[in-house]
């Protein structure tokens, strides 16, 4: 069986891989959007936090024998705590300045984290095995589905939808959204906005780290894995517009799939297809697909 002259196994395989990448785009752009909304900072360190999540999982397994399932919780918690420290030490001094400074400061932090891990572990990747429970593949009749990839897509979908529910449908989410609109007023109503801001950055960092742990068994864990990804995620954010949570999720997944399909039909363009789409979207709808601002 062939689809457009491509063996359907290869086609579906790339589609699945695209979906996996899309899941990472969605999780990272979601975190970026939430942080930008409340802190007004474009978090360049998001890629580095994703890398730290993967490394945390690898170090836990390699040095302490903590397995994947514990790492799935512990790594995001560790990196989330680091995020809280970063917010308290650095970011809180920048809320009244031009957003450019937030970008530059987090860029500096990303360079520090990457440089440190390059010094410690080199640029070659560290292998991380797929946990036993999820190894192997399931034959669905029309395709062979690697279990771990299916797991990644399911978990990140669940996390994304959970975040969406938290922000759009709960009281805490209402505070967050109100804080995005007018932080001073929300504080005047007796809500501890600085605490909320701190925890939001921590949560965004934890989300990036979770994506990192999920990615560890798929790609080699290496210090540069974050910065290669973050630029694509920036493009995803520009395409989706940072206004809407659901928008970030859909754009991330959609672009992952498109990238996967490009890899099937015209592999040379697969690394730039997201950027080309960004250009087209900007020409037609400068505010982004889901953006609200003029």
């Amino acid at each position: 069986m062939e689809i457009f002259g491509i063996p359907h196994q290869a086609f579906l395989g790339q589609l699945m891989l695209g979906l996996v990448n899309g899941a990472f785009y969605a999780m990272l752009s979601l975190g970026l959007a939430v942080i930008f909304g409340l802190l007004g900072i474009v978090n360049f360190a998001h890629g580095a936090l994703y890398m730290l999540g993967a490394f945390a999982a690898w170090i836990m397994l390699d040095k302490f024998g903590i397995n994947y399932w514990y790492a799935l919780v512990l790594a995001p918690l560790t990196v989330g705590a680091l995020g809280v420290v970063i917010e308290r030490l650095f970011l809180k001094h920048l809320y009244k300045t031009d957003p450019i400074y937030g970008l530059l400061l987090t860029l500096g932090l990303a360079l520090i984290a990457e440089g440190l891990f390059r010094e410690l572990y080199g640029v070659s990747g560290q292998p991380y095995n797929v946990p036993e429970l999820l190894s192997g593949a399931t034959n669905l009749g029309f395709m062979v589905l690697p279990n771990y990839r299916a797991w990644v897509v399911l978990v990140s979908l669940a996390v994304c939808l959970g975040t969406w529910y938290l922000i759009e449908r709960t009281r805490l989410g209402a505070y967050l959204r109100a804080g995005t609109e007018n932080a001073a007023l929300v504080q005047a109503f007796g809500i501890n906005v600085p605490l909320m801001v701190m925890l939001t950055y921590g949560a965004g960092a934890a989300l990036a780290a979770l994506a990192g742990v999920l990615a560890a068994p798929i790609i080699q864990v290496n210090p540069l894995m974050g910065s290669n990804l973050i630029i694509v995620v920036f493009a995803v954010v520009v395409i989706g517009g940072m206004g809407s949570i659901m928008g970030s999720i859909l754009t991330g997944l959609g672009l992952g799939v498109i990238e996967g399909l490009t890899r099937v039909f015209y592999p040379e363009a697969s690394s730039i297809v997201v950027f080309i789409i960004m250009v087209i979207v900007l020409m037609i709808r400068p505010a982004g697909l889901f953006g609200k601002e003029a």
Partner: protein
Amino acid sequence: MSSAMPPLTDHKQMTKTAKLLRLTYLALLILALVAPMLGLYPVFVMKLLCFALFACAFNLLLGFTGLLSFGHAAFFGSAAYITGYFIKSQNFTPELGIAAGVIGAGLIGLLVGVVAIRRQGIYFAMITLAMAQMVYFVCLQAPFTGGEDGLQGVPRGALFGLVSLKSDTAMYYLVVAVFVAGFLAVSRIVHSPFGQVLKMIRENEPRAISLGYQVDRYKLLAFVLSSALAGLAGSLKALIMGFATLSDVHWTMSGEVILMTLLGGVGTFFGPVMGAGIVISLQDTLADKVGSWVNVIIGVIFVLCVLVFRKGVVGELQAWLERRRAAAISADTKNAGRLG
């Protein structure tokens, strides 16, 4: 980032400062001209001037128009590739090779600029970054760039087919001449009526629009000028070093030029030169001693700059002189009051 205009009352004081500034520039120029005789390694100074020009070009956009481009490596690097390609494979003379690089970078700047100016602020930075990454991938895959190895062994040739640039001294004086021309060009642009409009856009864009300026055209022209000048720096770099590599177009290079400008002083004339001097000297002295710790150190400088040193070296110096002068004037008026 706004620069306070000095009060008009102390005209004498101002001309004194201007005279001092002119003398400083003259001294620096003389220093640059005699540097090879002082035993400074010419290739190092050439590299420094090259990046100083790059930072000045970048500052034209960030410092004087208020646009943060995170993609200037695309112009620097692609000009290096274009110059290298034409000189090596098409036997262009150096000046024609440089011209090709500058035009190429300007055209790429036009394409990137048209897209990027559709959004403002932080989105502008993200869009330029994404588009520069596209240029990076093109350089990685295009048939004439040498892929991972880059373009090696670009000959310096002879200027206008007459003056051989093989010796570092000849090359050095060409670089000094080009740098001075580039620096003066930036200064000319900023002080022209066009430059004043750019400053207005930086200070208050809605107001500029309401006054009837077609802001997007001004921004686009500033973007193209800045990318062409960045291209000039990149072309020179290819000629000096004899190679163009992927690191020239990589986003970290865009980050470095931002750091140079920030460290020296955004929106000051001499700041980017100073910043480039510090960063290049640092890389040069540290690279073989500490390896990849250089990146950590650069990251730390970034963080420090943003947190405590936002005006940069030259900016802080200017602010200090300003404060001192203001103190002197108020003391003067006090004394005058007492005498009268």
